[in-house]
Structures are given as structure tokens and as C-alpha cells.
């Protein structure tokens, strides 16, 4: 039972990796093991199984970092700060991965690595927030002050995310699912009709997609668990010296 989560992660990750690369993409899928062809995406659609989970974990890690930051402010327990900073460190790694997978995907479907689409802007801002968070931490000497001020900064920076996630994509024209687009016939801005942008996924792709989300979330929590335990041991051993 001790290794249940690791075993589950192994099974899920295997399914996700096989499910991502093996099924052929055909025009009219007949069996469950064939993905439908999406015009304009073709084989490039497969990266969605890695791109979206990394972006999701970036946000999840930020929320965890903020949650434990607030808990630190309430309870003044240094272990909460350790949990917060290790979540932020992992979030930073996943943020870079999301940016890289996204920009590789953008290069081959939209033509260039970066477009300043609203979602690209928001992942960039998240990258900056993570960078600023660590810059702030390294500029503070006292442990208690570092924990307190970085927790406050994570709250302040979090307040801007609703503007990026919910408001800007609805005000600006973009390429990601759920964005606005320009009607080629009339030149008016309208809600998107493109199948990629409207986010309609075939049932079998959806299965792989959600399994991938679950697998990556388990992976994240495993990493996080290890990271904050290591940091805690370092913290304790430094105190003893």
C-alpha cells in the first residue's frame, strides 16, 4: 500500500505516453484507437497531452505557494514557508516547460515562436511573477522577514491573475481556445468558430487528456513532497550547527 501512488503514477504515465504517440491520426476514425484528424493541426495535436498539464501545474503550484504563504502568516510556522517555496520552485520549472512546449507548438502551427496572444502574455507574466518572487526572497536576509514578505508578494501578485485569465482573453484577439477571432467575411470581431479554438475534443482524446492531467498532478505532488522534505531536513540541520 505504501507504494500505491507510485504504482498508479507508473500505470497512468505509461498509458498517457502510449496514448499520446501510438494511435494513428486518420480522417474518419473507425475504432476507439484512432484519433480524428483536425485540419491544421494533424500530428501536432499530440503535444496537447503534455502542454496543458504543465500549464495547469504552473497555476496549481502558484496557488499552493500562496495558500501555504497565507498559512505561514497565520500560524508563523516555518515549515509552511518551506512548503510554499518548494511549491513555487516546482511551479517555476513547470512554467518554463509550459512556455517551451507552447512556443514549439506555436512555431509549427501558427508560424512563429511567440505571438503575444493573451494566453502567451499570461504565462509570460506568471514567469515574471515567479522570477520576482525568487528575486525578492534572495534579497531578504532574515528568515522570518523573507517568509512574511514573499507570502505578501505572492498575494499581491495573485490579484492581477484574474485580469489575465478571465478578462484579457475576452477583450483581445487570440489564438488559444476560447479567444475572440476576426470574421474573415465581415472583418468583425466574434466568438471563435474554429474547432481547435472552440475546444471540441474527440472522446478518446479526452480520455488520454484527463488521464494525463491526473498523472502529471500526481507527479507534481510526489516531487513537491520530496522537495519540501529535503528543504526541511536542510533547515533542521542548519539549526543544529
Amino acid at each position, binding site marked *: 500500500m505504501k507504494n500505491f501512488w507510485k504504482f498508479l503514477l507508473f500505470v497512468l504515465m505509461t498509458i498517457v505516453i502510449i496514448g499520446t504517440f501510438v494511435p494513428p491520426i486518420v480522417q474518419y476514425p473507425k475504432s476507439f484507437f484512432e484519433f480524428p484528424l483536425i485540419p491544421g493541426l494533424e500530428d501536432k495535436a499530440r503535444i496537447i497531452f503534455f502542454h496543458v498539464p504543465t500549464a495547469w501545474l504552473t497555476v496549481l503550484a502558484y496557488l499552493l505557494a500562496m495558500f501555504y504563504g497565507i498559512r505561514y*502568516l497565520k500560524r508563523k510556522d516555518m515549515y509552511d514557508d518551506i512548503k510554499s517555496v518548494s511549491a513555487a520552485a516546482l511551479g517555476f520549472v513547470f512554467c518554463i516547460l509550459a512556455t517551451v512546449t507552447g512556443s514549439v507548438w506555436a512555431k509549427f502551427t501558427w508560424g512563429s515562436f511567440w505571438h503575444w496572444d493573451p494566453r502567451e502574455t499570461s504565462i509570460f*507574466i506568471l514567469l*515574471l*511573477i515567479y*522570477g*520576482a518572487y525568487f*528575486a*525578492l526572497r534572495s*534579497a*531578504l*536576509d532574515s528568515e522570518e*522577514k523573507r517568509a*512574511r*514578505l514573499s507570502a*505578501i*508578494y505572492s*498575494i*499581491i*501578485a495573485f*490579484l*492581477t491573475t484574474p*485580469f*489575465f485569465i478571465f*478578462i*484579457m482573453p475576452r*477583450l483581445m484577439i487570440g489564438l488559444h481556445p476560447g479567444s475572440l477571432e476576426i470574421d474573415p467575411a465581415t472583418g468583425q470581431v466574434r466568438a471563435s468558430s474554429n474547432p481547435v479554438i472552440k475546444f471540441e475534443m474527440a472522446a478518446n482524446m479526452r480520455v488520454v487528456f484527463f488521464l494525463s492531467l491526473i498523472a502529471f498532478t500526481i507527479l507534481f505532488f510526489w516531487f513537491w513532497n520530496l522537495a519540501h522534505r529535503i528543504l526541511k531536513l536542510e533547515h533542521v540541520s542548519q539549526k543544529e550547527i
Partner: protein
Amino acid sequence: MKKIFYIFYKDFSSELRMRFALNALIMFVVVAVSTILFSLGSESVAPNVYAGMFWVVVFFSAMSGLSRVFVSEEERGTTLILSLIANPVTVFLGKFLFNLVLIFFINSVIALLYMFLFQEFLIQNWNSFLLAYVLGNFGISASSTIIAAIISKANVKGTLYPVLAFPVLLPLILMLIEITKSAMEGNPISDVEAELLVLISYDVVMITASILVFDIIWRD
């Protein structure tokens, strides 16, 4: 209420007495604008580039001037006395008011310079521009005051300030650029209604949140 004004007045009169910061800030604006002038030369650029460049100069002059409210207290070692004589909300609002007046002054200088120096910087719809200008100043002042309070406790104050403030101020700056562009094209105010609502909500969120968390920063 009176105390808020006293804190504002203390900063204001000490600023007037020795105008290092103000003079330096005005010179900073002049230097920034003339850099843009030199880099453009005699070329004429699309009007909406000016809208962007206007707020870029505003952002960087805010970044060089607005952190002083808390950094100077920390440098003079007067933080403790200030926290003894007034409660945190009062301190925050006094500093916020001072920054607001400062940013209004600096932004007016920048706007006037722009209008004199760039013929293409022509605002056609003054209503939407002025509304965005006022709301934008409130937002910039609120965010930069709370970030200044965080930064005043850190070791490298100067360089860290724009790094921390940029992600927080970016939604505001983007909306301001959109509205300024639309005002320069002479579109009616109803075109930028959504952007103006975003500005209002940003201001309300930032001022409220800053008052709530300032207490924790202020009490060591």
C-alpha cells in the same frame, strides 16, 4: 482622517524643503523623453506607438520616484517612530496620497512634454483619455506604494522595485495603452467602456488589498 493628511503633509513639506527627489525625477523624465526624441530622429511613427511610449515613460518614472516614500523612512531610521504615532492604515493612506500627488504631477509633466515635442501625439477624445489618466494614476499609486513597502525591507531596493512592480502593474498599463490608442484615434468613449471598467476594478482591488496586507508588512 486628519492624521492621514498630517503624514501626507510631513512628506510633502520635507520634499519641498530639499527638492533632490523632485528635481531628479523631472530630469529623469526629460532624459527619457529626449532619448525617445533622439531615437526617432525625423522619422514619423504610427500614432499608436506614441501611446505605448507615453506609458512606458510613465511606468519608469514611477519606478524611479515612488519607492522613496518608504525607502527614505527606512534610510533615516524613522520607521519605528512612525509606527508608534499612527496606525498602519493611516500610514498607508498618507503615503498613498503623497504618491498620488507625485504621480499626478509627474504624469502631467510627461503629458505636456509629449504634446509639445511630438506633433503626432494628438488626443482627439479628451474624455476617455482624462478618465484613463485619473484612474491609471490611482492604480499606479496604489500598487507602487504597497510594493515600495515590501521593497523597503529588502537589501537591493533600487533594482528590485521595477522587477516586483512590473507584473503587478502590467494589466493596468496594457489597458491604459489600449484606451490612449483609442483616444488618439478619436473613437467614442463607449468603445473603451470595458477597458475603463477593468481600470476601475483594478483600482478598487489594489487599494483594498493593500490596506488589508499593509498591516502585516508594517509590524515587524
